[in-house]
C-alpha cells in the first residue's frame, strides 16, 4: 500500500477546541487496516482525546513497534512526529526520546505480539522505570500481518480461525503492569468509545507510566466463535468497574471545562475525584460498588478473581495521582537535554588541564 492522499477540504462548521483546532487537525493519513478493525476505533479515540484536551499536535511524539497496531500512529496526529521502530522495542526508543526531551507528550502504541511476545522484556522494564507516557496495547490476541498466528495474550483454550487451539497460558499485561509499578493502569474495549476516550485523556495527563490494555478484535483473524478477543465475546464478558471523566478544573494553565463527552447528570454520580499530574481532575463514577482504584494490591486481586470467573474487567483499575517519573528519579535539569549546548555541556580547556595534571 503506497501513500494515499486525504481530501483537504474541511466542513466550515466543525467544532473547535481551545487551540482553535478541529478534530480534523488531529487526524493522520487514511488507514490501511481492514474495514471494521478495532485499531481504527482506538485511533479515533486517540484523536478525540487529544482534541478534547486541546493538546498541540506537534508537541506529541507517537512511537510504535511493528505490526498492525504499530502502523496506526501514521493514521492520527499528522502534525506530530512519529517513529515506527523495530518489533517489540518501542519501549526503549520511547525511553530514549523521553530522556532527550522531557517537554513532549509521549504516546506509545503497540500490539499484543509486539508487547507481550517479542517485546515482553522491554515492556516490563519500561513499567519499572516509570517513563512518563501513555502506553496503549491494541490487544487482539493474534498476529494479523502474518495471517492469524496466536500471540502471547491469547487465552489458553481459545481457538484460531483455522481451528487450532492455543494451549499456552495467556499473559495479562494489566496484571504485569500493576506488579511492575505502572502508576495508571486501565483496560478497555475498542468498541466502547465512551469508556475509552476518558481513559486515554486521563493517561495523557498522568504524571507517570500509564498503561491501557485495549481489547481490539481482529475482524480478519480473531472474531469468530471460540475466540476470547471477538466483539461478541468481549461484550458478553465485560464488567466495567467505573466510568471516568476528566474535567479541566483547576488546571495549571486554565482552560474552559470540556463537557462534550459527559452524559447529563454524570457529575452527580461522581464518588471519587483524583487530581492529575497537570492539575486536572479525574472523576470516577463507580459501577462496581466496592472498587478502590488507589490500591495496587487490591486491583491485582480483583482482576484475577474476575478473570477466574470468566469476566474481563474494564475501566480505570489503578491510579497513583502522585506518581513520579524517570526524570524525577534521575534528577535531570528542567531544560530538555536536547536543548543544551557547548556552554552547558563542555567543561572546556581549563578543566581539561586540571584533569591532565591529576593523571600524571
Amino acid at each position, binding site marked *: *500500500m*503506497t*501513500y494515499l492522499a486525504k481530501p483537504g477540504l474541511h466542513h466550515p462548521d466543525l467544532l473547535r477546541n481551545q487551540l482553535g483546532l478541529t478534530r480534523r487537525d488531529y487526524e493522520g493519513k487514511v488507514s490501511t487496516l481492514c474495514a471494521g478493525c478495532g485499531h481504527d476505533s482506538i485511533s479515533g479515540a486517540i484523536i478525540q482525546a487529544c482534541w478534547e484536551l486541546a493538546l*498541540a*499536535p*506537534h*508537541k506529541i*511524539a507517537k512511537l510504535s513497534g511493528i505490526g498492525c497496531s504499530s502502523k496506526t*500512529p*501514521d493514521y492520527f496526529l*499528522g*502534525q*506530530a*512526529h*512519529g*517513529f*515506527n*521502530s*523495530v518489533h517489540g*522495542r518501542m*519501549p*526503549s*526508543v*520511547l*525511553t*530514549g*526520546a523521553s*530522556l*532527550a*526531551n522531557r*517537554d*513532549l507528550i509521549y504516546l506509545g502504541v503497540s500490539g499484543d505480539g509486539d508487547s507481550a511476545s517479542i517485546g515482553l*522484556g*522491554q515492556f*516490563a*522494564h519500561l513499567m519499572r*522505570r516509570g517513563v512518563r507516557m501513555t502506553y496503549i496495547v491494541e490487544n487482539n490476541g493474534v498476529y494479523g500481518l502474518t495471517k492469524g498466528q496466536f500471540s502471547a495474550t491469547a487465552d489458553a483454550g481459545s481457538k484460531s480461525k483455522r481451528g487450532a487451539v492455543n494451549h499456552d497460558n495467556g499473559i495479562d499485561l494489566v496484571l504485569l503492569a500493576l506488579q511492575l509499578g505502572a502508576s495508571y493502569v486501565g483496560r478497555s474495549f475498542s468498541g466502547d468509545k465512551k469508556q475509552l476516550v476518558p481513559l486515554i485523556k486521563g493517561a495523557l495527563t498522568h504524571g507517570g507510566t500509564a498503561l491501557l490494555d485495549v481489547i481490539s478484535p481482529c475482524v480478519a483473524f480473531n472474531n469468530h466463535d471460540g475466540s476470547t478477543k471477538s466483539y461478541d465475546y468481549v461484550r458478553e464478558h465485560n464488567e466495567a468497574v467505573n466510568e471516568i471523566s476528566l474535567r479541566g478544573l483547576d488546571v495549571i494553565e486554565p482552560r474552559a471545562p470540556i463537557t462534550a463527552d459527559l452524559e447529563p447528570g454524570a457529575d452527580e454520580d461522581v464518588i471519587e475525584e483524583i487530581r492529575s499530574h497537570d492539575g486536572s481532575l479525574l472523576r470516577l463514577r463507580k459501577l462496581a460498588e466496592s472498587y478502590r482504584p488507589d490500591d495496587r494490591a487490591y486491583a491485582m486481586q480483583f482482576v484475577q478473581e474476575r478473570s477466574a470467573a470468566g469476566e474481563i474487567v474494564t475501566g480505570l483499575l489503578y491510579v497513583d495521582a502522585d506518581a513520579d517519573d524517570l*526524570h524525577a528519579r*534521575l*534528577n*535531570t*535539569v*528542567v531544560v530538555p*537535554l*536536547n536543548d*543544551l*549546548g*557547548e556552554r*552547558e*555541556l*563542555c*567543561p*572546556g*580547556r581549563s*578543566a*581539561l588541564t586540571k*584533569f*591532565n595534571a591529576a*593523571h*600524571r
Partner: protein
Amino acid sequence: MSSQIGAQKGAQKGTQKDALAACNDFVVKFANINGSGSASANELFARAILRMGVPVSPRNIFPSNIQGLPTWYEVRVSELGWLGRRGGVDLMVAMNPQTWDKDLAEIEPGGYLLYDSSKNVPAARLRSDINAIGVPLTEMCNARYRDARERQLLKNIIYVGVLAALLGIEPDVVAQLLGEQYKGKDKLVKPNLDAFMMGLHHGREQLNDIVRLRVERRDAVGERIFIDGNTAAAMGAVYGGATVCAWYPITPSSSLAEAFARLCAKYRVDAAGHSRFAILQAEDELASIGIVIGAAWNGARAFTATSGPGVSLMQEFLGLAYFAELPAVVIDVQRGGPSTGMPTRTQQSDLLLAAYASHGDTKHVLLFPEDPAECFEMTALAFDLADRLQTPVFVMSDLDIGMNTRLTAPLAWDDERRYDRGKVMTAEMLDAVRDFGRYLDVDGDGIVYRTRPGTHPSKGAFFTRGTTRDRYARYSEEGPVYVDNMERLLRKFDTAATLMPAPQMQKAKRATRHGALFFGSTSPAMSEALALLQAQGVPVDALRVRAFPFTTAVSDFIASHDKVFVIEQNRDGQLRCLLLNELDVDAARLIPVLHYDGTPITARFIAQAIGSHIGSEKVMPLKRAS
C-alpha cells in the same frame, strides 16, 4: 652459578655472571591470584617508575573471575618510550603457586625470579639458567601483622619494597604516591608505608647487588598523562556533548560507562544540583541501543559502550538507524570472540561485525583509536560525525587500550570548537522553505535534512520508519523509490569518506616497495617493530588506518607498494577483507600478519613475521636433492 639466593634466612649475597643487565629497559611481570589485592600494589610499582621520569606500559592480564583464578600484571619499562608489549619477561614476581611452572618458563635466560620462600621450594622446581631470589614474605607478614586481611594485602606492598631495593626505585617517590593514593585516609598511609619500608630494608640488607636491572631517574615522560582508554573515551563523551548514555554491563566496556557517570557527576551537575545528563543501565544491549536511537531521534547526543556480544545483539536496531538515518555513537571495546569467547582478553575482531552490521545492505562508519588520547578525541569526534552524517558511528577501542593505564598525550580541547549538529531544520528555516522532504537530497551530498519532534506546529513533521519510504518520508514499496534511496545512502557514504580522520604515515628512511597497514592498539608494537626492522636493514613504510570508510590515502598507499603487510589482531584478516571488498585491490599484494591469541600483539612478533617474509623472498630456490 648459584641459582637460589636468599631462600634460607641469612641468605648469601651473590653476583651472577650471566645475569641480565639493563637500565630503564626491561619487563617485570607479576603473577598473582585474583582478588588478593595485588592490583593496587602492582600499579604503585609502575607509577613509581613513571614518577622517576621513565616511561612504563603496564598491562593487566586477568581472568573472568572475582576471586581465586590467576591474574598477571606486566610492566614494560622503556626509556626509549616503547609502549607495546615486548614479549618475554626479565623479572617475574611469582606469587601464585597455581601458575608457577608456566610463569617460570616465561623468564628470559639470565632473568630473575622473585618468590615467597616462606615454604622451601625444591631445587627441581627452579630453573638453573635464571636467578631465583627468595624472600620469606608470608613469614615477614605473619611476624608483623595479626589481622588476616592486613597479612594478605600488605604482603603485596612488601614485595614492592623489595623490588624498590633491587631495582633502585626511589623510596621518597613511593611515599609520595602512597600519600596521594590515600589522601584523606591517613590511617591507611602508615601501614602501607611501613610494609614498603620493611620490604625495602630486607632487600637492601639481604639482597644487595643481585639484580642488574636498574631504574635511573630520567626526564623521558614529559607532558604525557597516565590514563586508561575507557576513562579517556568517557571524558570524550563529556566534552563531545553526550547527554544520554544507555549501557549494559559487559567486560571490557563497563568501566567506560561507569567513568562517564563519575565524570558527569563532577562536570555536569548544575548549581541547583540537577543533572545535565541521563544515564540508564538498560536491561540488555537491545534496549541500550534503542534508548540511544530514541534520544538521537529527539536530537540529543547519545551513546552506548559495549563489546562484541553487545554489538551482535544490536544488529537489528543498527540497521534501523542506518536506514532511518539516525545518529548513534557506539563505543565497542573489543574482546576475544566469537560468542562469549575470551571476555577478558584483547582482540580486534569486531571490524566486519560493525562495518556491515545488520541485515540488508548496510555500511557503518568506524573510527580506530590507537591510545587513550585518541579514545578521547575520536569519541568527541564521533558525535559530530554521527550528527553530520545522521548514521551510527563506531569507536573501535579494545581491551588493551580500554582497560590498561597507558602513557598518552595530554587530552586537548579548543574552546573555540563548536559542536557540528548537522542538518537540522529550525522552525524559522521551515517557514523560509517552500518544501520540506525528510529524504530529499537538497545539497547533492547524500545527506538529508531532519527536524526534531516538536519543532513547528504545522511543518516538518514526518514518520520515521524502517520500511521503505519516498523522499517525503511517505510509505512506499515501489522498486525505483527503494533504489533511489539506497543509492543516495551510498552517496552519503562517499561523503563520509571525505570527513574521516586521515591515516598516519610512518615512512622508512629509504625508499621501499614494502608497506604495512595497521590500526588501533597495534600502534605502539608496530612503531617498535618498524625500528627493529630498520635496524636489521629492512625498511618498511607504514600507514596507520584511522577510519572506515577508507580515504583515498589508503588506496594510494597500497598502489605505491608491491607488497603490503596487513597487521591485525584477529584470525580472519578483517581489515584486509574490508580493503579487498571496498577498494578493489589485488588480494595477492595484501599479506596478512595475524596475532589473535588474546594477548596484545608484540613488536617481536610483527618484526619476525615481516622480516621472515621479506627474507624468504630473497632466498633463491634450491633444487631439491631428490
